[in-house]
Structures are given as C-alpha cells and as structure tokens.
C-alpha cells in the first residue's frame, strides 16, 4: 500500500514538472519578454544588458531549473499587462473561483448521485425516463447558454437574483469569502447552478451506468438468493461498490469544474481566476497564462491524489494483499 501511494506521488510530481515545462516554454518561446517589459523606446544595448541580467542567455536547462525553483518559492513573476506580481493577482482571485467550484460540485453530487441511483433502480418508470431526457438535454446545452437563460429568467424577467458580481463579501484573513452573507449567497446561486448543471448530468449518468452494472453482478444475485433485505442490498451492497469507481471519475471531473468556471465567470462577470485568465489571453499576458496553467494543474493533481488515498481507504483489496 505504501508503495502504491509513493508510486502515485511520483506520477504526480512528473505531471507537475511536465506542466511547469509547458509553462516555461510559453515564457521562453512565445513573444519576447524583454520587448514586453521595456517598450520600444529602450535602446538595443539596454535591452541586451537587461537580457543578460535576467539570465535569458543562459542554457535552457539552467533557465528551466531557475524557473521551477522560483515557482516552488512562490515567485511567479510579473504580469506584462499590469506590472503587478502574478502571485498577488492570482491569489486574490482564488477564493472566488474555489468557492464557486466547490458549491457547484456539491450541488452536482447532492442532486446527481441520488438521481443516478433512482434511475438505476427503477429504469422503466416515467420519472426515470423524464430524468434521463432532461439530463440528455442538459448535457447538450453549452454552459454559457444555461448561464444566459438563467440570467434572463431569474435576473431580467423575474428580477429575483443578481446577475453579476459576488454580492456581499466578508474578509477572513486573506480570504475574501462570499459565503457569509445573504447577498453573497444570492449572487453565488446562479453561477453555481450554471457551473454545476453539466457536472450534475455527467455524475448522474455515471452513477446510473455503474449501478446498473453492479446490480447484474454475481454477488448481488447471491445476496438476493440469500434473502438479504432489498434496501440493504441496494445501498450497503450495490451503492457502496458503485461509488468506488465513481469517486475516481469525480476527481477527474473536478478539473472540469475549474475549467468550466472560465465560461461561467465570463457570463456572470464573476471575479475569479478564470476571468483573469481570459483577459490574459486577450492581451497575450504570458506570465499570467503560464502561472494559471501551473495552478490549475496543481489543483487537479492534488484532488486526484486525495481521491487515490480515499480509494485505498475504501477498497480492502488495495489495503490488504495476503492470500491464505
């Protein structure tokens, strides 16, 4: 088991390094950092000197090493556009995106898993067919369209909920949260639903497929043959076995949540990392782009590691190996 965890750790480090390499290549090869920083008035000699000072003429590997070292120590460079440290720019936006993502994920799980279980256990009922149709449509509507529709219905026609911004925020240490005010929640609701809908439909279909598969397995048949009460059968036996592969996929999906937040943030003008990234693309602000990449990959890898640990905790086949 220890070996398994270590192996996963090594894989994660590898992925992070690869992403760092990508980010670094971005820096190096796309556009010229010097011209970005100094503008056209600086002389060629001065530019050359700056290049030398910043170590931009050093061998590739050395620069990459320095880059990684900088990343690890938290030095993310300066934005081409705003001249501010990238670290600050991103740090200030993280809470907004994370809160949005987590709430969306919770919504998708709280609705998706029970819906999936229900449609798996009663596949022929009207309710199940309706749910399936709805999710099919849900998976086909682009996130931004859902956002627009929600804005239109709840924001414009009914006027119940705000359509942009975070509403009332509360500062906790360095974390600016919108979870502690009614205003904050009202502003969070529409974007979270928008972001959650796609994940919800995916989760539901996944749980349904896995559960139907499990219900056909021999041990379920055997449990039925033994007269185990149906409720226990469905939940303790079937659902528990279903969740094992589902957890892995949910870990993967979390990456999707963070990525789709770009779109949602754009539609709702939600001041998160995604919006920052979009702006940086428009202005080809390489430092912000590169660091965003690394941060996203980091979250993704971290979540997947946690999921793997959960997996080991749940599935005894991974924990105990001996055969007697």
């Amino acid at each position, binding site marked *: 088991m*220890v*070996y398994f965890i270590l192996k996963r750790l090594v894989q994660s480090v590898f992925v992070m390094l690869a992403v760092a390499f990508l980010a670094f290549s971005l820096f190096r090869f796309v556009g010229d950092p010097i011209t970005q920083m100094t503008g056209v008035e600086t002389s060629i000699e001065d530019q050359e000197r700056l290049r030398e000072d910043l170590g931009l003429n050093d061998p590739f590997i050395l620069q990459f090493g320095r880059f990684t070292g900088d990343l690890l120590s938290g030095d993310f460079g300066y934005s081409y556009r705003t001249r501010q440290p990238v670290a600050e720019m991103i740090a200030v936006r993280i809470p907004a995106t994370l809160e949005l993502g987590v709430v969306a994920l919770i919504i998708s799980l709280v609705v998706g898993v029970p819906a999936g279980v229900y449609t798996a256990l009663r596949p022929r009922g009207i309710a199940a067919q309706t749910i399936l149709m709805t999710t099919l449509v849900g998976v086909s509507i682009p996130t931004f369209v859902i956002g627009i529709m929600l804005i239109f219905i709840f924001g414009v026609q009914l006027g119940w909920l705000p359509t942009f911004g975070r509403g009332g925020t509360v500062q906790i240490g360095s974390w600016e949260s919108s979870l502690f005010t009614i205003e904050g929640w009202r502003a969070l609701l529409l974007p979270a639903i928008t972001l959650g809908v796609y994940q919800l439909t995916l989760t539901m279909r996944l749980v349904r497929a896995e559960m139907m598969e499990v219900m056909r397995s021999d041990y379920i*048949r*055997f449990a039925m043959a*033994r*007269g*185990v009460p149906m409720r226990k059968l469905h939940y303790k036996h079937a659902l*528990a*076995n279903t969740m094992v592969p589902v957890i892995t996929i949910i870990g993967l999906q979390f990456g999707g949540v963070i990525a789709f937040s770009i779109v949602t943030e754009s539609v709702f003008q939600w001041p998160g990392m995604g919006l920052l990234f979009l702006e940086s693309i428009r202005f080809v602000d390489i430092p912000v782009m590169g660091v965003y990449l690394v941060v996203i990959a980091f979250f993704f890898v971290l979540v997947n590691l946690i999921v793997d640990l959960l997996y080991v905790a749940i599935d005894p086949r991974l924990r*105990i190996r001996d055969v007697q």
Partner: protein
Amino acid sequence: MLTIKDLAVKFPSRFGDFSAISDVDMTIAPGEIHGLVGESGAGKSTVGAAVIGLLSAPGYIANGTLTLGDTDLRTLTEVQAHAIRGDRISMIFQDPQTSLNPLMTIEDQLIETIQAHSDVRYSAAHKRAVDLLEEIGIKDAAKRIKAYPHQFSGGMRQRVVIALAICTDPELIIADEPTTALDVAVQSQVLDLIRRLAKDRKIAFMLITHDIGVIAQIADRVTVMRQGRVVETGETAQVIGAPTQPYTRALMDAVPPLDRRIDRFRVPAEEGHLAASAGISNAAEKWLLEGQQQAPMGLSLKDICVRFAGPRTSIFRKPDPYIALQDVSLEVKPGSIMGLVGESGSGKSTLAKAITGLIKPSSGTMTLGDLELPGGKFRSRHHPSRQLIQMVFQDPYSSLNSRHRVGAILAEPLWFYGTVQDAQERTKLAAAMLDLVGMAPDAIDKYPHQFSGGQRQRIAVARALLARPRFLICDEPTSALDVSIQAEILNLLKDLQAKFGLTILFISHNLAVVRQMADDTAVLRNGQIEEINASEKLFSSPEAAYTQKLLALTPVMPTDWTALRA
C-alpha cells in the same frame, strides 16, 4: 418436498417467444441430492432460477406448478417470495470469486444474512457464524472470519459461499455448477461437504452440472435434460448405469472413461452433423500429404525455466520472481501424441506459450526435429517454426476473429505462408479443408458467431491444418465443449493425426480425456514435472504420489453399479 410439474419458461425476443424449458417435472425429497445434468442449452440453470424466483429479465414462467412443502411458490407476492429466499431456498453459483461482495468482511456478510431471517442478537449471530465456518472446514474460524473475500483461496471461498447459503438452515439449496471452477482435489472436498450437509442437516440439493462424473459420485437421483425438456429421470445407478432413453445412452457413451483406453468414442447422432462427406475433402487430403515430405518431427525440451517478475509491493525490496516453469524436460516422440496433464496454475499454458514463441524461457533449450527454437522475441517472425508449429486453442468463442468471415480466417495461413498464391485456389482449398474436418463447405461465407462451439472448434482445427504444420499443440481443445461434441472433436483429432503423421502435444486438466488421446503422458504440478511415462503405465500404476492422488480424486463413473444399488 420440492415438486415441479409441467414447468415452462419463456423468453420474449424480437423473433417471438423463445421457449427455454417446457414440460419439466421433478421431485426432490428432504435430504436428497438431486442431480440435474445436461449439455449447454439444456435449460438446467433456468430450472434452478425459476424455482428460486431469480429468472433474468425478460424471462417469465409461462406454465406449471412449483410447490415447496405446502407452499405454492408461484402464488407468492414479491415480498413473500423474497422472504423465502435464504430462509427455505438458497442458491450458490459457479464462480466463488464473483459471488462475494469484495468490500465486506465475511463476518459482515454472514451476520447480515443470519439476522435477515432470525431475530437474534449480534453476539448470538456471531457465534453461529463462527461455528458454521468451523463446521465446513475453515480452521481458525474466529480469526479468519474478519477477513475479506479476496484473502481466501478459490476452494476456501466456495466453502464460505456454502456457509452463507446454509447459515439460515434452508430446506433446499440449488447449486449451479458449484465445483466446475475448482481443482480436482478441492472439488472432491466440496463434494464431500455437500454430501455431509445433506445427510446431517437434511438439506436437499439440486445439483446442476454438466459433469456426469460428479453426478455419479454424490447424487442420489438424477434428471437428464436436453434442449429444454426432460429426457430421463430416476435413481442415479439406473439412469447412468442402465439408461432407458437413447439420448441418455449416447451421452453416457460419450463420457471418456478413466479406467481404460478406447479407440474411438461412440457419438450420439446430432442433427446438422455432416454424416456423409461432400466429396471434396480429397483435395485437402492430397494437399496435406504433399507437405508431408519429411519424416514426422519430434519436440525436445530440456530444462525449461520461465520466471516472471512478481508484482511490486515495496520500494525497498525487489519483488520475488514468480516461477511458472522449473526445469521442465520432455520428449515428444515423432508422430505420437503426448498428453500434458495439470491443474489450473500448473504452468501448462505457459509451456505452450514458450514453445510457440509467445514467451521467452529464462533458460533451457527447445528443439523441433533438427530445428533450434529460439525463445520469445528472439524468434524472428519468419522463423520456419512459425509454420511448422500450430495451435488449437481452448475457447472456441475467442480463437476466431469474429469480424472476419470464415473463408478469410482459413485463407490467412495460406496467404501468409505463401503456400498458395492464387486467391481462388485458396478459397477452394479452404472449402476442401472444411469438408475434411466435417463442416459444410458453405461455411466459407459465414461469420464465426453463426456457428456452435463444436463447429467453431472444427474451423479452428482446419485453420491450423491449412498452415501444413508438423507439430500441433492442442491446449484444452475440448474443455469448453459439451461431452458429446467433445467426443466428436477427439475422434476427429485422432483420425487426422493417424492419417497425416502429425506430432501432437495434448494439454488438458481432464485425466480421462488424456488417457484416451495420448500415447505418453506428463504430469505437471506448480511448474514442475511430477512424472512422465507411457500413458497406459502411468494410468494403471502411477509412481508419483501426486499422480496417485489426482487419479483417486477424479470423479468417475463406476463400471459396476450393482454394488452401489445395494
């Protein structure tokens, strides 16, 4: 106690209703072990599923009565039916590995079952569970009960499954192929256990199996089924020893005896089986004989060792290697059949893969006639042995590419080895070969899934022959086939070998089959040869202890039934 009358089960399909079983009558008394035997498609599993109410959708009971004691099983509501399951009727399946919930301990699964049917406290249920495990032969039960299913070996797991089935004291247990997936020694123990339970606890068993030897060993009465109908039923001694129906008689004749060698099997006449040849097989025969220019070739293996790297479980230690084969040496005399016998995991398939170049032995040499056989990836794709050695595989459902037509599958070796250049000629020769193995030549245009297991195996033999090999490896070629089909295929192999001077390595776990086919036999256990000898000598007076044990534990049909009847 269990009475079945006129039972009929139907499965609706887009072609209309398919009758799985019809007019089935059966009675089982308390404590009786009732064997339900038949070939595939006979409907035996359907009967069991219908009784316990677990027919797979969309099947339904179309007709008949099912009574357990005083209870009419067909009039029960879903809730009542579910209450009976486990309490009065239970069922166990073939594969112990998939029958247990991998996430729950044995303890939890046992106690949950016990508490589902009787109102006992946890501690009482726990004690009952531990006692039960002891009773069925699991030592150190109090400790072992806390383990998970994957921590038990196959035989132990099946015992746990049986424990789960009897922990509620049912009146009837339906056992669907309970020992098919187990080794001979383990099978023998499980069968003994079943017999003991039937006698001591008066539990009736419906023992569903295709293995007639098993039935002969422990069943009191037996019902023979064929294509959804009952053919014959009665006391075991009578049905097996002196069957009244022609089908039953033919079935019993097709079972290979363990105690003597017969020249050819008597085969029950099958509809659709090609009795008369279409006449074009001569072309194939001539072609095969043409290739027989040299003398038959023998295979010589010296000190073959195959080691696999074990799974890595620790960063500090290198994983222990798994030794699949150790110092295996054997000589297959040219033109003879050598049988290789072993249980699962003994290394038989590994040996076959080493000979054919799929696996590289870590040490040892292999020679075919005068030809050195390099191992694994050192054997080039154009090495002559690739043509000279051909293989017939075990699973007829996966050994033919289901997306290719039979004609293409057969023509491939001809095209690949360049023996026949013209496409039309290839098709003609393929058709002739089909005729030679007893298939209708119009199979050329069909797909494999349109044929039965036995027919597919014939196609596989034809494919092997179309490479014009000198050495044929048959890896469990009939293990997946019904007894009567097995007899046909074995006859076919015997005939082909005699006519074309092939040297054959015949691998099987079935001792009786090997005795019928092989001139010499080698016994393999855990990667090592236990004994090699001429078959007759090995079977009649085995030297190694392991061989003796195997022979003693294999369920056989007694030749003398009068003693049993007494």
